């Protein structure tokens, strides 16, 4: 399949680097300021080198990538809230041309799921978004495989940064600020960790899960969100004395409630993963409880979810 990759962050780059291994050609690659377009397949190395040197992946106009010859658009620009600009417009442009779309960007399916699905229904292109929830973990494919009607609830640890901070605080008895600084040094937390520690990132993933489980209608506004900043290390000590610990858990209930917040779980609970690990637990009608865990972030990890989605698309 011919891919147009929008976004040259860690995920976009990895998709471009790994596409060939999965049997696909990248015919367009764009970041916010430029693009490389070649119907016979772009030179990935040259594009990345161009980005290193000039700041953009190519000399072509960024918009040219949208009009290029491709079968599937990979939307890997940064997640934005509200109108999900410009990711949503990229998705719209591809679907209006009857092209498939694979998202790594959470914005369009977390904030405008119904709009995206309406566009997909109106044309011949399909939309997939495995990479938006749980990085490398095949959450959406599992739900799809069971059929959403057989999955009654989902919960899990969906943000590696928050989980790293909480599990380090509990293990070392260190304060929030100290562990956060350490996480930033290690590159586990971004310079501005707000999105992760305030629960927004996990909430977006939960909105997406709720859309899949309950047939749409959810956005960030529908999620009850509480972050981890207000969890003092003394609270973690008290939890530990009692054989428990605290994790930032996202939850989509059978009733359709969606919430993210720090929750008490027993120390040996399946959900009490440590470090940057993610886990998703699904309640099903006939199969009991399913647990899937793995790496929730990272360029190649998330790109593998993107490319698995590309592999699930019908040939055009």
């Amino acid at each position: 399949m011919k891919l147009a990759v929008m976004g040259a962050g860690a995920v976009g780059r990895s998709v471009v680097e790994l596409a060939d291994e999965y049997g696909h050609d990248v015919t367009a690659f764009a970041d916010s300021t430029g693009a490389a377009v070649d119907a016979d397949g772009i030179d990935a190395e040259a594009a990345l080198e161009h980005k290193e040197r000039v700041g953009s992946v190519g000399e072509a106009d960024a918009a040219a990538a949208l009009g290029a010859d491709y079968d599937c658009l990979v939307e890997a620009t940064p997640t934005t809230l509200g109108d999900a600009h410009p990711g949503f417009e990229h998705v719209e442009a591809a679907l209006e041309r009857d092209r498939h779309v694979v998202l790594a960007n959470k914005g369009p399916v977390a904030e405008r799921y119904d709009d995206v699905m309406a566009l997909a229904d109106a044309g011949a292109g399909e939309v997939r978004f495995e990479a938006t929830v749980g990085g490398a973990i095949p959450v959406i494919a599992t739900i799809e495989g069971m059929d959403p009607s057989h999955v009654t609830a989902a919960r899990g640890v969906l943000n590696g940064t928050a989980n790293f901070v909480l599990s380090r605080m509990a293990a070392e008895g260190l304060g929030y600020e100290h562990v956060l600084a350490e996480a930033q040094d290690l590159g586990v937390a971004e310079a501005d960790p707000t999105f992760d520690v305030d629960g927004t990132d996990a909430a977006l993933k939960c909105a997406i899960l709720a859309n899949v489980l309950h047939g749409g209608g959810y956005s960030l506004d529908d999620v009850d969100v509480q972050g981890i900043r207000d969890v003092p290390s003394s609270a973690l000590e008290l939890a530990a004395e009692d054989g428990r610990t605290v994790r930032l858990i996202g939850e989509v209930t059978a009733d359709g409630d969606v919430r993210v917040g720090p929750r008490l779980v027993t120390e040996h609970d399946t959900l009490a993963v440590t470090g940057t690990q993610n886990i998703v637990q699904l309640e099903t009608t006939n199969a009991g409880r399913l647990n899937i865990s793995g790496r929730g972030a990272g360029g190649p990890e998330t790109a593998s979810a993107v490319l698995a989605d590309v592999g699930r698309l019908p040939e055009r």
Partner: protein
Amino acid sequence: MSESPPEGDADERQAHTVRLELVDEPGELLNALRPIAENGGNLLSVFHERGSLTPRGRIPVEVDLECTPRQFETVVEALREAGVNVIQAGTERYGEEVTVLLAGALVGTDLSDTLSRIEECTSASVVDFSLTDEQGADGVSSARLRLAATEGSVNAALDCVRDVADEKELHVVEPLVEGEA
């Protein structure tokens, strides 16, 4: 014992209560607690009523522990094998128990009022309570509360904790109540 899996998830740890009768002899309590710990039970509390005696002249001891339903069966069997008289084993007495954490200016916002209001507005009672020292100048401390609620009223109890905490600007870490299949 039936071969079919127990109700609910066999791997889910929950609170159980066992009431035991002990002979008033040194080492008897330890003898009773060992089978619990050795079979995967996490001891939550031991209530040793040394002053009162059962009709058979023994000392009643109530032990709260946490384990999976399968482990609980093993624990009870092991207790009986160790010669401990188990009067009652099960979760029915307390109904349901939940643990919550509170963090913030607990002392500055009248802790005893917080606790009594939590007990007032629901059928829940605070069966265990731990508090940490205040930290730093901001007066932040943390507390762990174990609430016993009657069957089916856990959510109401948690709603109440949340309301009282909101009003006093305290942060609540709620337990994850799983198994809504």
